[in-house]
């Protein structure tokens, strides 16, 4: 049973993390290739605070706060650069995070830090907490997409200049998207640190950023259900099939490429297309 509980926790954290990126990239159309850095900020914040003796549950809001503030700083960069330039800038932020953490002794440098302190939660309780937070994030995402703010996000993703002409404060909305998305990534990071008990700079590098992006893209950019399902499946795929474990990156890379090549809307678009053609067939 322990194994299943651990798997479910991994799944929930991945879903939470993928949904946080979906808010920025899916809803608001701001591509980020450095999202794992915010997972890292959350993980290190929570991990260090727990080590310092602060109760685990209290560190989660702090992890969100830290990541969110840093996210706003990066969001400020998104106001200055666009599209391809933004993709490269966020990628740079990811490398910067890893590069800084790797050289600092207080963060445990290359070896990272291990968290021995007890979170005050049993394993099943911790799993329930993660699942509950992931579900809450999914509900929140659905709400955001339907409300006024979400519609503006969508419009910015479609055509930023037109939105600006309509007299909407584009920078404010972009920053909001970054703040929410990165704060949620920080939350995922806090859970991640406590779940794995060991964090090292390499867990938050470019590969991790691409992995989470592939979850969003495979699920269908912007689709909450699609992203949640693909994150859940892709996160445990390597543990379910040991033979995939060795070829994990080959599978991820291949999936990412094939998805973009043949169905840029991801699984969500694929399902919609299939159900349409089935509907036609029935008639």
């Amino acid at each position, binding site marked *: 049973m322990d194994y299943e509980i651990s798997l479910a926790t991994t799944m929930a954290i991945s879903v939470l993390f993928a949904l946080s990126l979906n808010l920025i990239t899916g809803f608001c159309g701001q591509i980020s290739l450095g999202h794992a850095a915010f997972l890292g900020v959350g993980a290190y914040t929570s991990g260090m605070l727990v080590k310092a003796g602060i109760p685990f549950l209290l560190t989660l809001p702090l992890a969100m706060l830290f990541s969110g503030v840093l996210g706003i700083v990066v969001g400020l960069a998104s106001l200055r650069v666009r599209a391809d*330039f933004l993709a*490269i800038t966020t990628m*740079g932020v990811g490398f910067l995070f890893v*590069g800084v953490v790797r050289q600092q002794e207080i963060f445990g440098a290359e070896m990272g830090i291990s968290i021995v302190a007890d979170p005050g939660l049993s394993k099943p309780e911790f799993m329930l907490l993660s699942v509950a937070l992931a579900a809450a994030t999914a509900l929140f995402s659905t709400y955001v997409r339907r409300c006024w703010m979400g519609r503006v996000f969508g419009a910015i993703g479609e055509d930023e200049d037109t939105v600006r002409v309509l007299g909407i404060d584009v920078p404010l909305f972009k920053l909001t998207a970054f703040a929410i998305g990165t704060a949620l990534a920080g939350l995922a990071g806090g859970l991640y640190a406590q779940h794995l008990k060991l964090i090292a700079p390499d867990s938050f590098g470019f590969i991790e950023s691409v992995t989470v992006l592939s979850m969003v893209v495979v699920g269908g950019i912007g689709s909450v259900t699609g992203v949640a399902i693909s994150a859940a499946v892709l996160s445990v795929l390597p543990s379910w099939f040991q033979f995939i474990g060795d070829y994990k*990156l080959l599978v991820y890379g291949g999936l990412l490429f094939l998805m973009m090549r043949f169905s840029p809307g991801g699984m969500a678009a694929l399902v919609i297309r299939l159900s349409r053609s089935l509907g036609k067939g029935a008639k």
Partner: protein
Amino acid sequence: MLFVELAAQGLVQGSIYALIALGLTLVYGLLRILHVAHAAFFTLGGYVGVLVANQTGSLAAAIFAAMMVAGVGGILAFRLCYQPILDQPPFVPLIASIGLYIAAEELFRIVFGAQGLTYRNEFLQGQVVLFDFLRFKHAEVVVMLGSAAIIGVLSLLQIRTRIGIACQATVSDPQMAESFGVSRRMVGDINFFVGSALAAFAGVMVSLLNNLVEPTMGSVPSYKALAIIVLGGLGSTRGALAASLVLGVVESFGTVYLGQLLDRNAIAFAFLIMILMWRPHGLFARR
């Protein structure tokens, strides 16, 4: 004396970056795609080079084979992977390209093993001594002179030949060029062939310098080259060349003076972000 040494090392590194970034910038100028998988051809060049060199014992054959194989591979990548998704929003080809690169890197690992391959013969390992404190390996000299020569010849071809002019025309106004009978597909083929072949040449040179070809050898150059073409102003060849040399030198000084604080990649990207905040379209932006 340290100063001169660091500058020289920076220039060698910069020349390697230039060879890789040039192909990337050609592709970007034409298709507006960030071609991350470009670095796969750098790695491919390294592998073909080392395999041919160990079989035949000839470095010239190795370089030629590497450039040809990578060039044809580049055309295939263009035809099979990018051309069908050109009308999609820019993140689609970008993500497809990242996927392609990751899959390629894994394939190299699975096919050739994770430890990497080494050259059986010693090529270009002799030293040129300019002053007591300034020495270059032959391979380093070949890299610097080779990239200068290649870039010079290419820019001459671009101005003087019909095909070169056709390429330029397609970049500046694809529709107009097409109506004058320039095939976009042919221009794409040429750009991918030339760019990938240059990356392969760089791959052979880097593998000579380190005497090692490994699956991950492309990962750092791939991200670095992206940073360089962004830094130079996307699609600007002059900008990419200048940015390569600047970044090479900045890195080599940075690792010595800021090494305590940041690692090599972080220095490069911190520099990139600073420049982008100052000039959001890079150093040599067009229009």
